[in-house]
């Protein structure tokens, strides 16, 4: 009961202090807002980059072309070998006849020429289309497949996939490093705000100590004040995430520049991002104020 009272009264004091030191509170809230808007953007960019990478990765396959003289035994050996490879998710076989049929369907101009190929004159090769688990290891997997007996050549869009994945990784890392740096700056700003609040309430703290207020009772209102500042600071970023991203999504029709780059759907992404923003705001406020209290409130 007593601890409930302490928490309730600390909350009351913290709210009073936020209002009483309005200009200081406003400065902190503004900083938190700016930081959280950038962090929210970073999270949404990262989500979209991840989504885009996933989409691309889903479409990336390794195609293995078998030697033209490859027979049933070669294929069985090949299948046994790739089943042992842990990075291979699925594989499908297409005989050169099936490949021929596909090509006839795809290209009307050459369909007549291709149709004239009989079983012996068909220059195409039997193929295996292979999906991998981890695209980062695709080059290794491709070279392992190429070394299997009976494999003529292997294709997987060499270079392009690695470059795209690399660029996306870099974008994601940079956004998070920037967000991290901003969090640190904001924590310092909160420390400063709470420090000024502590100084402005020095007399009150002195009397609290004198009349026997516990250390927790003296410190708690400041920590709660930091959390409240963090929560207030997260209001605008949350609204920006919910309404801004949804508007942007509708405006671009769910894709960015080309249908290849699909945007992440607003729901549930905006809710998750909003929750993350709220938690980060509260944590930043709490860490900042706790540090200020530890440093400047002498009990």
């Amino acid at each position, binding site marked *: *009961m007593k601890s409930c009272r302490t928490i309730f*009264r600390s909350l009351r004091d913290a709210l009073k202090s936020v209002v009483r030191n309005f200009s200081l509170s406003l400065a902190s809230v503004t900083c938190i807002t700016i930081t959280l808007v950038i962090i929210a953007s970073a999270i949404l960019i990262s989500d979209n980059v991840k989504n885009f990478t996933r989409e691309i990765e889903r479409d990336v396959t390794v195609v293995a072309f078998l030697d033209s003289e490859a027979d049933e035994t070669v294929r069985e050996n090949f299948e046994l070998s790739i089943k042992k490879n842990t990075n291979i998710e699925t594989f499908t076989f297409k005989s050169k006849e099936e490949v021929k049929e596909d090509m006839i369907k795809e290209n009307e101009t050459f369909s007549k020429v291709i149709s004239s190929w009989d079983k012996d004159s068909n220059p195409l090769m039997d193929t295996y289309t292979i999906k991998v688990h981890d695209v980062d290891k695709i080059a290794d997997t491709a070279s392992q497949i190429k070394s299997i007996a009976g494999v003529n050549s292997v294709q997987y869009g060499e270079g392009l996939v690695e470059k795209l994945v690399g660029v996306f990784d870099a974008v994601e890392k940079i956004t998070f490093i920037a967000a991290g740096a901003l969090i640190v700056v904001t924590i310092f700003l909160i420390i400063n705000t709470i420090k000024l609040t502590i100084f402005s309430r020095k007399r009150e703290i*002195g009397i609290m100590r*004198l*009349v*026997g*207020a*516990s*250390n927790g009772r003296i410190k708690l209102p400041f920590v709660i004040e930091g959390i409240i500042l963090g929560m207030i600071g997260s209001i605008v970023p949350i609204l920006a995430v919910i309404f801004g991203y949804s508007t942007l999504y509708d405006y671009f029709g769910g894709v960015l520049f080309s249908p290849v780059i699909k945007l992440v759907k607003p729901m549930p992404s905006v809710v998750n991002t909003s929750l993350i923003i709220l938690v980060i705001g509260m944590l930043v406020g709490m860490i900042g104020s706790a540090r200020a209290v530890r440093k400047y409130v002498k*009990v």
Partner: protein
Amino acid sequence: MFVLEKDIERKKEIINMKNVYKTYPNGVGALFDLNLSVYLGEFVFIIGGSGSGKSTLIKMLYREERPTRGEIILGGVNVGKLRNSKVYKLRRLIGVVFQDYKLLPKLTVYENVAFALDVTGVDSKTIRKKVIDVLDKVGLKHKAKEYPDTLSGGEQQRVAIARAVVNHPKILICDEPTGNLDPKISMEIMEILDKINKEYKTTILMVTHDIDIVKKMKKRVIVLKEGRMIKDYKEGKFVDEKL
């Protein structure tokens, strides 16, 4: 460990200072080999000139300062060995009144007194009852809703006293409470302190320069000079002293 109130009553001796020395970090010695016993319900004046160690003595009692050497037992607590995180428990046994009142200007008289109970976790109903009682005791019930800056110096000091005794501390430490007041008002304050001493059985230690007050009150008087206790007059024995 903190002793129960009953234990304090039984022991009677509420403050015991044994061979207490205090030297500040800058090397200045403030107190030397101080031995003092104060009993429950006593009213004790501590007098002495500037630099005699009066303020240091009372600061050590409420653990604003630690003794450099020696032992201070207050209400069964070894004050010098008390950890910082536990000091608040000691301070709930003590009320402190200062010359400059130390009131919060943005709070009303009622709120200033209630503040002491509010921050120690007392429930609202008890706060209301205790604050009204103590304001009545110091004669300021009718000014409960006023702010400190609308009150006279004497009234402000009465608010400070009310705040210091609202939780019925065992000891009330007064650091020159009449220092800013004229003789008439000073005597009014002394009457209130005397009433608290008698009715609440609160032990009072009062530091003062005002020899007239000391003479009139006829209480136990301790005289400090250059950090040493030079005289300890029993109740009613004090005649005069040149500070």
